[in-house]
């Protein structure tokens, strides 16, 4: 057993890989939030009047709301006046093509393993790269446009496709949905926009890569995905941030709209800087993600691998409005050191024969606290609906905590809801079995943890899955016993 604690020690000393920052010359807003800052952002983005008003109203809503305190999270109160709401790497002019993108930026992304060069390796994936507040490059745009698929930065969408933006913005997640969605609605700066027309299967993975670079800056991106009738898209999201002593706020909003027979798969590998081994620094990650299965037979599937952030507050959800619609949530959340995660999903069944599945695997190590919080609600109308939830927690060491808070509300007699949860540690017999076959303890643990999370990892697209497995082993390396 002392072996165990030794390994836990080793593990917790593992360093964050993406903790460097670069000196990018930036165009910034002054610190703090007020109407003028919002006007400043809107002006920088050359937005239409309606959007500015929409933002200002959101700010009014935000001011009237209170920061939620129901999550199992413990962090000092955020001073919203000490955050910078806009920071954009200075570029000569907005780039017309990748050739115009600042080579320093391209280098930054190359260092993260994200190639913005279309000729290079990531041929199966189109990338929208967002640094701090703005999107700096989107690849394969033209090729996608041939199919009628719009994939661009949110700012660009506001300019080029204002009707679509106006029609869908805030419909899945209204401004007053919660404290952080209100804040995001007021100050969001960029993000990705994606529109798949009727009957089109998007031929490649679409992906957004988020990077916080500037100090004292919050990132408030906004993503909107619209899948028209019988379309399909798989979307990936990745994120990292430099190591900084102070906490940085990330409050994103992702809205997904799925029309009749449409299918959207949204995968996240969240690797924001988690703070150091003493819990200093790290990203506060307050994210609202929700999709609506609006049409009959539509499907939205969330997959997330959460390894980063000091504090995570995130509940990707599905509103299953269409009959026979399907919602899925697959999650692996790993916390180590002093990280805290309160994450899970909501499945709101409105349509008949709607089905949902929640598979959540929590892994806590170090001094971390890891909570699953979820809701399954079967409304009266949702006859013959089904839900299956499985929430497992794995504890590594006895200084961390694992918590499960599922809410199950059923309002009709023809539906079936099943929920299971277990908490355990890695079996000593499992480790001994591996050791007896010549596998050392660290590898044994990595093997067992990856096996434990496999049901979720296999949902990820190939390249992401390999990445996620590595990340999982890395985050936990040495920390398990």
């Amino acid at each position, binding site marked *: 057993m002392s072996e165990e604690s030794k390994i836990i020690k080793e593990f917790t000393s593992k360093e964050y890989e993406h903790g460097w920052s670069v000196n990018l010359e930036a165009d910034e807003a002054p610190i703090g939030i007020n109407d003028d800052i919002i006007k400043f952002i809107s002006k920088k983005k050359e937005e239409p009047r309606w959007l500015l008003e929409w933002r200002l109203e959101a700010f009014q809503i935000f001011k009237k709301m209170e920061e939620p305190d129901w999550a199992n999270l413990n962090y000092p109160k955020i001073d919203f006046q000490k955050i910078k709401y806009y920071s954009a790497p200075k570029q000569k002019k907005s780039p017309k093509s990748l050739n115009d993108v600042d080579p320093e930026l391209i280098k930054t992304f190359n260092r993260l393993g994200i190639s913005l060069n279309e000729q290079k390796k990531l041929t199966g994936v189109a990338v929208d790269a967002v640094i701090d507040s703005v999107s700096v490059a989107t690849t394969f745009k033209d090729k996608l446009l041939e199919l009628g698929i719009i994939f661009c930065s949110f700012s660009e969408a506001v300019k080029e496709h204002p009707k679509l933006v106006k029609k869908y913005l805030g419909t899945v997640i209204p401004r007053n949905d919660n404290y952080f969605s209100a804040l995001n609605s007021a100050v969001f700066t960029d993000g990705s926009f994606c529109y798949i027309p009727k009957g089109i299967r998007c031929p490649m993975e679409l992906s957004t890569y988020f990077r916080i670079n500037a100090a004292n800056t919050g990132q408030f991106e906004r993503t909107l995905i619209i899948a028209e009738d019988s379309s399909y898209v798989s979307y990936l999201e990745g994120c990292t941030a430099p190591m900084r002593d102070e906490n940085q706020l990330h409050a994103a909003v992702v809205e997904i709209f799925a029309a009749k027979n449409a299918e959207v798969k949204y995968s996240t590998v969240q690797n924001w800087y988690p703070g150091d081994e003493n819990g200093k620094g790290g990203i506060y990650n307050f994210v609202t993600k929700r999709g609506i299965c609006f049409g009959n037979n539509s499907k939205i599937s969330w997959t997330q691998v959460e390894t980063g952030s000091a504090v995570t507050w995130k509940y990707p959800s599905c509103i299953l409005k269409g009959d026979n619609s399907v919602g899925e949530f697959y999650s692996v959340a790993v916390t180590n050191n002093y990280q805290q995660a309160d994450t899970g999903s909501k499945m709101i069944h409105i349509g008949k024969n709607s089905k949902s599945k929640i598979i959540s695997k929590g892994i806590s190590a170090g001094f971390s606290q890891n909570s699953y919080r979820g809701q399954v609600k079967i409304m009266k109308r949702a006859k013959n609906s089904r839900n299956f939830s499985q929430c497992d927690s794995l504890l590594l060491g006895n200084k961390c905590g694992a918590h499960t808070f599922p809410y199950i509300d059923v309002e009709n007699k023809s539906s079936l809801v099943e929920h299971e949860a277990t908490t355990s540690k890695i*079996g*000593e*017999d*499992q480790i*001994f*079995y*591996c*050791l*007896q*076959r*010549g*596998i*050392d*303890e660290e*590898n044994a643990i990595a*093997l*067992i943890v*990856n*096996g*434990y*999370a*496999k*049901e979720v990892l296999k949902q990820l697209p190939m390249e992401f899955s390999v990445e996620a497995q590595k990340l999982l082993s890395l985050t936990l390396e040495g920390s398990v016993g």
Partner: protein
Amino acid sequence: MLSIKKLKVSIENNLILKGLNLEIKNGEVHAIMGPNGSGKSTLASVIAGNDNYKIESGSISFFGKNINNFSPDERAMMGIFLAFQYPVEIPGVSTINFIKTALNRIREFNKKKPLDAVGFLNTMKKKMNLVKIDRDLLSRSINEGFSGGEKKRNEIFQMAMLEPKLSILDETDSGLDIDALKIVSNGVNKLRTKDNSTIVVTHYQRLLDYIIPDYVHVLIDGKIVKSGNKDLALELENKGYDWL
């Protein structure tokens, strides 16, 4: 190969092995028999290095090296293999991936190059026949949802893959019907060489009809009370353990 001297072992302050001696040379098959609770499985676990058991005194040497303080994986790399009485299930970890990780670690220890995917698959195909194990089974999570017989065959298959110097079969016959028993024994026999040794831990004589031992030892209350050749096993079958 293996030399155990005056071994005393306890678990939670209960002395289980009370001064046990055992010598095994290259190429030999030794059967350890004894009634329930005599310490047979403890012996198997202790040789493999399970740290739930505490060695109070005495020594276990493997090729002349005292391995009392060696970790289970070090012993495995040196060539000790334990076929578990109750093979452990590890959800989500495919058997193939598991064996590949183990095999390459052992190869690395023996200063051999790791096997690539093709090399591994070829070796695997050959060994699969030995124990008539299904390819599909190997793609599934280790032992998860396997029947009793499948688990035991999987153990022998892993033994075939890892080519240990000393194999310990802990009650491998328990829970097997006669056909499965034949398949498993056949596998074990085919893997016998003049260099490899085997310890067969069993409660019943039945298994020894198929895996013929060179020596039979009777373990009662933590000590070997009688040793002999295979006839001793038959005698035990007829008379039970009480006459000893």
